């Protein structure tokens, strides 16, 4: 199963610290030799200030020797820490003063002048806050780092450092596991990036701008995986974000392997569409996620394919149920081994089965239960139970009947009445026409033709 492991492709797009959980997961999953994983972990950790962790890793690797070379590093880290803390403390003292907290306003410049006038705080001191936060992050005090970076962001006006602090805060939140906060952070960061990207054509250095936007979007896509697969409403949000044109492009052109996560999220989101009212109303993007994802999977097939995407392709492009079933088996294991997806194995399997049976039922008129069970990787008894549940749960109840004598399901799908298809076709027209009219009146250009449009639509709809 190692060939389906994406850790290696994903790590370059992650922060050093974010990679540790992935490696730990690899360690547990046992796909690779533990020594290799440990060595990688050690290499990775060497760049950080988490001295104790390094030492433990080192000892794990070389149980015999006891190295002294880390002592110096520890010394240094501690001293830097103290020094930075002192610098930052001055600012913190001021900020934590309730008077100040009340006096602070939205306008950052105003705040700065206020602080400067009343408490003698300079920009350099505020930057010390950033440095300290960053340092704390490097030695693993993520919650502390998040705090400091938050304060820094409130005060600082430096755009670049602010963005950097954004990323840092996001990473800290992810690593501390505060998913709600992280999600919020993620959204603000995304907005910041997008506004920057849209402002980019105005900037003089427009030439390099699209590339850096692409880079930061790719990074964001990878980082957000942590959030989306841990936050309860993450999957729909993932689809919402990743299927937006800008991010879809980033995925298609820079990181097609993320399609696996999009595909899994699309499969998982099946529940959201079948149980309406359970969550907030989903957008059309999420509702048609599977269709959309299948298209993209098909398009990017030449670049990337893995069991999950192949499963979708076999099911919805080739309609080869046997192949789909085979791929599903593989996909199940791939999902189970994936760091992000492992928790969703059961759910994924469930939804995938549902998708198969839905497609199967739509195409067939009479289905052998045994056959369907085989398609779903279930024993006949389980299959029967599954099918009964399926029929009960969904709208198929009216059409499908089980004939136990012959051991088949009969599905009767009356053709869609004509009037219904006509209604379907003309449904959105009046709203669209109204939008037209609104747009027209907004520009002040009244066109009689479009206004007259509306009665015609109504007639068509009736």
């Amino acid at each position: 199963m190692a060939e389906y492991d994406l850790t290696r492709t994903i790590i370059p797009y992650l922060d050093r610290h974010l990679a540790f959980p992935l490696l730990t997961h690899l360690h547990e999953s046992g796909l690779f030799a533990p020594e290799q994983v440990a060595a990688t972990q050690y290499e990775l950790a060497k760049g950080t200030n988490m001295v104790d962790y390094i030492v433990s890793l080192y000892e794990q690797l070389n149980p015999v020797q006891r190295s002294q070379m880390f002592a110096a590093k520890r010394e240094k880290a501690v001293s830097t820490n103290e020094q930075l803390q002192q610098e930052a403390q001055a600012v913190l003292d001021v900020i934590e003063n309730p008077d100040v907290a009340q006096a602070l306003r939205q306008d950052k410049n105003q705040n700065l002048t206020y602080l400067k006038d009343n408490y003698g705080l300079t920009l350099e001191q505020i930057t010390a806050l950033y440095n300290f936060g960053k340092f704390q992050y490097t030695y693993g005090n993520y919650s502390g780092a998040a705090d400091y970076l938050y304060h820094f962001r409130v005060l600082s006006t430096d755009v670049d450092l602010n963005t950097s602090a954004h990323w840092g805060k996001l990473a800290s939140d992810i690593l501390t596991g505060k998913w709600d906060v992280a999600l919020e952070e993620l959204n603000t960061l995304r907005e910041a990036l997008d506004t920057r990207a849209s402002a980019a054509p105005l900037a003089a250095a427009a030439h390099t701008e699209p590339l850096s936007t692409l880079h930061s979007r790719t990074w964001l896509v990878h980082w957000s995986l942590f959030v989306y697969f841990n936050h309860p409403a993450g999957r729909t949000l993932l689809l919402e974000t990743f299927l937006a044109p800008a991010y879809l492009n980033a995925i298609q052109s820079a990181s097609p392997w993320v399609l696996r996560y999009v595909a899994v999220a699309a499969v998982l989101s099946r529940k959201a569409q079948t149980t309406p009212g359970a969550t907030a109303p989903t957008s059309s993007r999420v509702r048609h996620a599977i269709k959309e994802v299948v298209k993209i999977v098909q398009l990017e097939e030449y670049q990337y394919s893995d069991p999950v995407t192949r499963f979708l392709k076999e099911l919805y492009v080739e309609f080869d149920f046997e192949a789909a079933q085979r791929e599903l088996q593989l996909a199940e294991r791939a999902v189970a081994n994936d760091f992000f997806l492992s928790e969703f194995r059961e759910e994924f399997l469930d939804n995938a089965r549902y998708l198969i049976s839905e497609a199967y039922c739509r195409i067939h008129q009479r289905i052998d239960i045994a056959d369907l069970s085989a398609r779903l990787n279930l024993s006949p008894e389980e299959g029967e139970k599954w099918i009964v549940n399926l029929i009960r749960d969904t709208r198929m109840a009216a059409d499908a009947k089980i004939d136990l004598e012959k051991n088949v399901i009969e599905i009767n799908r009356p053709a869609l009445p004509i009037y219904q298809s006509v209604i379907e076709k003309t449904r959105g027209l009046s709203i669209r026409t109204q939008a037209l009219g609104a747009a027209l009146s907004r520009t002040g250009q009244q066109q009689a033709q479009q206004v007259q449009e509306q009665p015609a639509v109504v007639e068509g709809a009736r």
Partner: protein
Amino acid sequence: MSRFFRQAADSDSESSESEESLLSSDEDAPAAKAAAPAKPAMSRFLRTNNDSDSSSSEEESEEDGDSDEDEGPKEVKPKSRFLHDSDEEESDEDVRRVPKSARDKRLEEMEATGKSMDNALKINDWIAISNEYDKLTRLVQRQQNVAEPIPPFYIRTLSSLETSLNTALAKEKEAKKKMNASNARALTAMKQKVRKTVKEYEKEIKQYNDDPEAFEREWAALATPQVQARPEAVRRPAAGEGEDDDDFTQVGKGGKATQYTAEGIYKNLQAIQEARGKKNTDRTDQIRILERLLEVAVTTYQRIRVLLALVSSRFDYNASIASYMPIEMWSSAQREIDTLIGILTENVAYSVQEVTEDYDDLVERSPEEEKDGIVRIRGSIISFVDRLDDEFTRSLQNLDPHGTEYVDRLKDEKGLYCTICRAEVLYEKKQLPEPLARVVMRRLEHIYSKPDAVLNALESAVAASELTISLSLASQPSPSALINALCVHLYKSGNSVLRTRAMLSHIYHHAFHNDFYTARDMLLMSHLQETVYSMDVGTQILYNRAVVQLGLCAFRSGLIKEAQAILQDIFTTQRVKELLAQGVHQQRFQTLTPEQEKAEKQRQLPFHMHINTELLEAAFLVSSMLVEIPLLASIDSEEQRRKAISKPFRRLLDFADRQVFTGPPESTRDHIMQASKALQNGQWEQCRNLIQEIKIWSLMPEATSVKEMLAKRIQEEGLRTYLFTFAAHYKTLSLALLQRTFSLDHRVVNSIVSRMIWSEELPASLDQSAGVIVFHRVELTRPQQLAQILAEKVGAMVEQNEKALDFRLGGSAGWGDRADGTKGDKRGEQTQERRGRGERRGGASTRGGRGARFAQGLGSQMTKAR
């Protein structure tokens, strides 16, 4: 010589005039006298007539004189004799020693007329005076035409004439009877003439009257420098001409070849430079001289200078745009450019630049004397290389592509390629990014459309010439990597035109090597389709070529729908050949002007770069067939039938349908049309055979695999068509039967049928246990049908309105629910493009918007360019 003729003509006209006056004046003696001096001038032409003529006039004058006046004849006779003699002498002189300076001659003539006027004055012969005066005026006028000052002599004569006229008039009044009528008439006429002239020269006369000597001196001062300057000026061009003429012929004979020495090289060069571009310069001779000069050139500087001049005069050799440079000339030019580049590469101290400081052309220069130790010479290697390449293309355009000559000519490409590489090495060494980019582009243009074998051959030639070029096949793992390296070099260069061209060449290359996805992604990501309208025609042609090659690539890779969509754009224009610059379009309604035709011809690609249009058409029509026929079968109402995907194919199919009698297929089109009909009837085997019989497939490198692919596609599409066409006649249909009929695997049949059911193309479902398809066909009643059509139309109308409003508000402004694409607009477009393709694959009939627009855009631009 011309002076001679002019004079002869003048005297001729004069004499005829005097003859006229002779006739009019009733054979007056004075008239004859006046005629006498003129005659000899004429006699130069008609010497034989001379004697009798003059003598007869003399006789006449004698008679007249006798009858009229007593004194007259005696004086007249010697006069005329004298005049005659002097004139004869003069003419003799003229003949013997040619240049007596036109001016002097005129002066003499004037004086002579003045004298005869004086004489006539003495005898009070006003008719003669009048004649002589006219002659004098003409002479003076001519003098003025040559922009010489009026000689004082004339002024003097004028003033004396005026006074004598006045006295004569006064006398006339006193003694009226003395003059005869004609004489009196001449006198009055004379009076008026003189008055007019005097008025004209009033100022001069006044000056003269004030101080005759001063006036004369002034004139002399004015005239002398000219007198001296003129002969020189005259002599120099004459000498120059003579030298040119003489030397050229002499060199031709080999007589004076030693004349060219290293010392005189710059003078010779200058002379040639000056003669360059003149109408009657003999270019062959110039080239010969320069070749000689090259032989005697000693120093590096001299050699560079001579080579520069020699190469440009070789390119000058052929003045007309229509024809091409002679091939020998081209090869020597190529050799010389090679030498030149060689010299420049070896001697770093010399550099040829387009812009230099002014320097003296006639002085030898060496690196030691220059400030920074580098001799900069005016010239441009890059333009030489460009020109050489262009001339090569032009010769290929003009040669018959099926002759052996063409093939021979193509062999020269190796040398040319080496030259280009040499230039690349030179510019690399000198670190001049701008010309380097141009040279790399030239190089790329030679290899981008070539198969690997040809590319290897070209590169091995470069390797054999022992060039140390940084980007070569030796340093790159594969030909594609080489192309990639060249393109990357150009992407990095600042020139956006070159970047675009490099990008297109790269796309072409990828497509040529069946790398469809890379080529497509590059094309889409470059956003060229948005900007290509504003490019020059050459780039647009390259764009068309790249797109067409991409279509062929899709076809070869079995991506039928993509191929159809891509190729359709260019085929709907019906100007494939013109758009690919592979032939001039025949216009039905308008004829091209010669210039337009010439421009068009110049754009044509040489034959070996052509994309075979017949193959292209076959690929297009076959993919259209595979897309269209099932679609045609799936729609049943006449209304929908009109929405054709591929108009050209539909047109051909309709035409084939109308044929009363169809014979066995001959052309590619016949084959495809009959195959389409067979496919429509579900006879997939016949269809397959017809398609595979097409001979043009053999031009594709992967003919067999393509044929196999086509056969498979035909089976599948045949199945689809069959289901669409005959579904109405069945209630159930056994899958096994279908499987047998179309000899397809049961999985494939299952998959196709399932897909059709899933996408609601086929109102049916599968009965798994019985292994049959069960059709649920619902017959629509008329009102139901109409209601559906109405609903669709309303939908289309709203869509139209939305588009119209979009257009009105200016595309990107985005209103209503389209506002989500403000971020990363550009990429958004790309997705749309991709999705567009995806939809096409899904069977939706979206017409390729942008590409189609482009092809027509190019058309209009080409017409604009004309």
